[in-house]
């Protein structure tokens, strides 16, 4: 409680607490104002926040620009979808399997791609993600390019994922759990090694840290939480398709993290909120100015990103004042 009160003394704390409180009671608000569409947008914001937080582990803390993160979402989603299509509808089976597959895949591609640096790392993670993308497009039995309608994971007696509000709250709780885990991770021994290797890899190696192993575990962790986001995404629309892991989605995730503030704990959350609010509300706003302009909302959004990259390196997070740590 004391921590919460002291957090409320900084602009960052006020914004974060306010944001989390609004997200916590959102289904009540959307119900009161009869805005069901808003609830569905918010559900997506929360799910993509989880994905962005997981990307932030390797991109923000590890300094490794992974351009294939959406593949983990796809793997999570497809694991759920395929199991569901095959008649295994229990979430207790689907979810652990989905996360396990993502961790195994992350470990495999991490073991290869973490041997490269810089642009090569970006390219190789993209290449592996494209591999998964085309693989899923080729799964004719599971919808191929068109995707597949699935039935949602079942947790009998616990929660019905078809209930929009209940599903939203589940996503929100999982987002909080992910954020909590990351807040512990940053200052743990593991987090120090990961951030130290971002700051000065040569020094960390000279200190005696086998940096590669720590990065590989970070990569697998990010993959696991990415898969969690994918699981939720599949359950949100009761639908899976290759589009959920197209390279555009991987790019969106990087944009969300950069927009919110690389390496800031709540950065991905700010970034996801800003990204989806702009995506949802900028087109109608432009349409108000002139009919048909809405289609070109990215002409406005693009320069906005350039401005952030040029003048606000720390993203939205840096606009909220200096970080204490």
């Amino acid at each position: 409680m004391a921590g919460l009160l002291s957090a409320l003394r900084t602009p960052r704390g006020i914004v974060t607490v306010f944001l989390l409180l609004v997200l916590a009671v959102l289904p009540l608000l959307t119900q009161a104002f009869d805005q069901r569409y808003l609830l569905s947008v918010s559900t997506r914001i929360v799910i993509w926040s989880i994905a962005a937080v997981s990307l932030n582990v390797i991109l923000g803390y590890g300094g490794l620009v992974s351009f294939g993160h959406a593949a983990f979402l796809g793997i999570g989603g497809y694991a759920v979808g395929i199991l569901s299509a095959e008649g295994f509808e229990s979430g207790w089976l689907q979810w652990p399997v989905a996360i396990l597959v993502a961790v195994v895949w992350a470990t495999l591609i991490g073991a290869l791609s973490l041997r490269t640096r810089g642009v090569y790392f970006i390219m190789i993670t993209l290449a592996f993600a494209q591999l998964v993308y085309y693989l899923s497009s080729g799964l004719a039995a599971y919808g191929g390019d068109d995707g597949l309608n699935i039935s949602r994971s079942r947790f009998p007696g616990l929660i019905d994922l078809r209930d929009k509000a209940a599903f939203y709250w589940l996503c929100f709780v999982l987002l909080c759990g992910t954020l909590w885990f990351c807040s512990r991770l940053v200052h743990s021994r593991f987090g120090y090694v990961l951030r130290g290797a971002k700051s000065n890899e040569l020094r960390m190696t000279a200190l005696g840290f086998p940096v590669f192993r720590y990065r590989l575990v970070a990569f697998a962790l990010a993959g696991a939480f990415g898969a969690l986001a994918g699981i939720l995404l599949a359950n949100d629309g009761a639908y899976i398709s290759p589009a959920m892991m197209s390279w555009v989605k991987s790019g969106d995730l990087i944009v969300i993290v950069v927009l919110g503030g690389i390496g800031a704990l709540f950065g991905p959350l700010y970034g996801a909120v800003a990204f989806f609010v702009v995506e949802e509300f900028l087109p109608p706003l432009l349409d108000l100015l002139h009919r048909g302009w809405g289609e070109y909302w990215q002409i406005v959004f693009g320069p906005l990103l350039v401005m952030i990259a040029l003048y606000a390196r720390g993203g939205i997070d840096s606009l909220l004042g200096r970080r204490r740590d």
Partner: protein
Amino acid sequence: MHAAESIHFWVVAVTEPLLQADALVKRFGGLLATDNVAINVMAGEIHALIGPNGAGKTTLVGQLTGNLRPDSGTIRFAGRDVTRLPIHARVQLGLARSFQITSVLREFTTLDNAALAVQAHDGHSFRFLADARCDGRLRDLALRNLETVGLGPRAHTLASALSHGEQRQLEIAMALAGAPKLLLLDEPMAGMGADESRRLVALLRGLKERCGMLLIEHDMDAVFALADRITVLVYGRAIASGTPDQIRSNAEVRQAYLGEGVL
């Protein structure tokens, strides 16, 4: 310690140098950067490695630390053949180094830097939840190492805000974290003022009892003030090795340094 083990340890300590490199050769294309070099460091000794620019000092140190792999030759450390061991494994055996170009984690505080160095020697770091900032095992020892090198009062300053001399002190505090048997000091005096150099000489002299040192240095005042033995490297070859007095009077060494007026 077990009796047999302690006898073994005693034998190793007396009969074998801490670090023993033999017949090291390293080529870069047509350039013979290390030409059949043998060098050793005894426990509790400061062995200085000097030589003109381009003599191959850094290449030699790189092979000792594991950053470079020699084309041929062997390196033994603390009774083990480490020629093929990776850097981090050598560090775990007790071979620590400081860098020619100051290399600290600039975005971290001085204490964080020192604590990370301690952490590197305190088992694996696959601990994901406990706050390392509240970890007494890391912080206490880190603070003690900072005090040893005189950086106690600067513990909570960002490393990037330290002066050049202070960053070098921090390097040494970090190198001390694993209670190393041997310190490889790559030009620790580089870029230091006379005052800072004198302080560092005193600090290194005080550390001699704790660990052997291989000192690569251009500052001849520091070298002759500290070294028990000196090896001179010219064009990749060790042209002379001996006590400071022997080196001072060695004709070939005087030849190599002719005109530089440093000896």
